């Protein structure tokens, strides 16, 4: 029998002997991973939805008068000096009138008596994707307001503010729940191992007396913890996927959710969560053994 086989046999024995407490810890790990990954999935999808909205985000700058081509060039230069933008479109009063009329469709008759230049000319600034924080958008809007001949800048401020507040809240929840759940999981695993150690104090004492090496005693505990982390995170992710599929089938077709394309974690993220959980639980139990055995 080689070392690895001996350790694996010992690990299997430990698992069989303490299956009830192992099951409880496994459940804790599964729930912890499920809760954390649920919020994380929500966060990543909201961020993704935010990116989708960013594509449509534009700042409408109303001007006092139709800018000449030279003025347009000056505006373009000054805007680009502040930040990169995807594109800038100028809209004369006449073009604004035509667009408005087109939008009114069969009700366009109400514009019959209106002068064609009653709408102010404007320029529409489409920020680049990096403009995804509220502060940045605000700064950009404030800057545009300082340009000469600008009447007003509009970008759906209230909506954008609410959206980014929501993203910010989600980020806090993800970080907090992540931290709390990491602490809970590590504590639970370490505690289970500690209880196992207490229950097997006599056996460990005999093992030391018959010459068992440190590795022989400690590795099975590490493997136990790592296994709990691995199986628990796998079960957690699988539960989340089941939940995700159910929500998508049940709600996504007929509700607001249909507006956005909801996605599950890509494989690298799944593997990272599983690897992290495995390592966390393994090292938690390993350190618990170290303290207990004072090896």
């Amino acid at each position: 029998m080689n070392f690895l086989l001996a350790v694996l046999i010992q690990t299997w024995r430990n698992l069989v002997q303490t299956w009830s407490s192992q099951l409880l810890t496994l459940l804790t790990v599964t729930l912890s991973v499920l809760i954390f990954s649920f919020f994380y999935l929500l966060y990543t999808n909201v961020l993704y939805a935010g990116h989708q909205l960013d594509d449509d985000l534009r700042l409408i700058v109303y001007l006092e008068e139709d800018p000449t081509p030279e003025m347009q060039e000056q505006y373009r230069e000054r805007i680009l000096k502040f930040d990169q933008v995807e594109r800038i479109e100028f809209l004369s009063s006449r073009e604004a009138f035509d667009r408005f009329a087109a939008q009114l469709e069969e009700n366009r008759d109400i514009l019959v008596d209106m002068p064609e230049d009653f709408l102010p000319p404007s320029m529409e600034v489409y920020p680049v994707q990096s403009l995804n924080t509220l502060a940045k958008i605000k700064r950009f809007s404030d800057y545009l307001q300082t340009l000469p001949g600008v009447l007003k800048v509009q970008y759906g401020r209230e909506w954008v503010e609410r959206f980014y507040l929501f993203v910010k809240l989600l980020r806090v929840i993800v970080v907090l729940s992540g931290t709390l759940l990491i602490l809970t999981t590590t504590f639970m695993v370490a505690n289970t191992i500690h209880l196992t150690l207490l229950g097997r104090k006599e056996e460990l004492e005999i093992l030391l007396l018959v010459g068992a090496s440190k590795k022989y005693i400690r590795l099975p505990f590490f493997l136990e913890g790592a296994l709990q982390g691995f199986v628990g995170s796998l079960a957690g992710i699988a539960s989340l996927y089941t939940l995700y599929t159910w929500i998508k089938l049940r709600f996504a077709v007929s509700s607001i959710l249909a507006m956005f394309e909801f996605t599950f974690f890509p494989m690298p993220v799944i593997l990272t969560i599983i690897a992290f959980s495995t390592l966390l639980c393994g090292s938690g139990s390993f350190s618990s053994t170290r303290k207990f055995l004072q090896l």
Partner: protein
Amino acid sequence: MNGHGDETGCIIDLVKISKTYLPDIKALQDVSLSVRKGEMIFLTGKSGAGKSTLLRLLSRMEKPTKGVIDVAGIDLNRISPARLQQLRRRIGFAFQDFKLLPDRSVAQNIAMAMEVSYTRAAVIRMRTRKLLQRLGLSDKYHTRTSELSRGEQQRVAIARALSNEPELILADEPTGNLDSETTGMVMDLFRKYNERGATLIIATHDESIYRGTSHRVIELREGRIVDGGPEPDSLRDRSSVHANATPPSAP
């Protein structure tokens, strides 16, 4: 692992060993002893004479208050944890209190000593069956040790001590719970191991097992050797070797 002890033919050297338990119980006082490889020694004396303490010191379950202990050429006062575990795999210890796991089977208890040496499963099974047969416990292979009598438990503890083919066997009152027939069985087994080269130190106050023996009988009284003490030649040499040895720290 081949140390000084191997070169001189000694497996154990004790030089002026003392062990004092708190508050001031002197279990051993200035004990010096040298044991050659392949020797069989009976350690006798009344209860509390220091027999068990001496065996516990030899397996480094405890540290001496002062003096030097050398086992298989290794100074136990300076041994690293890893090396100690290696050494323990070469020592078979039949404990007075058996140290068996009650919820495990006889076979599992015996296998523990071999598993830590990564012995193959087939060899473990074979050795276990053989030892149980020799100790009259063939039918107890799968029995939980909690279901055994004291005498049977004692034999299981002996089987575990012998299972790893140890170079040094320490047996603390190995026949304390046995009748004369099983005592004979156990002693025959010990003799066989001794003939194959193992060194045995048997702590006992059962006079019947050493009466008329040709082996050395050492008597301990109040923590001192009063009869059959050190092998003078080797001890004299070894004392000079350890003249500069660091004394162990007090417990």
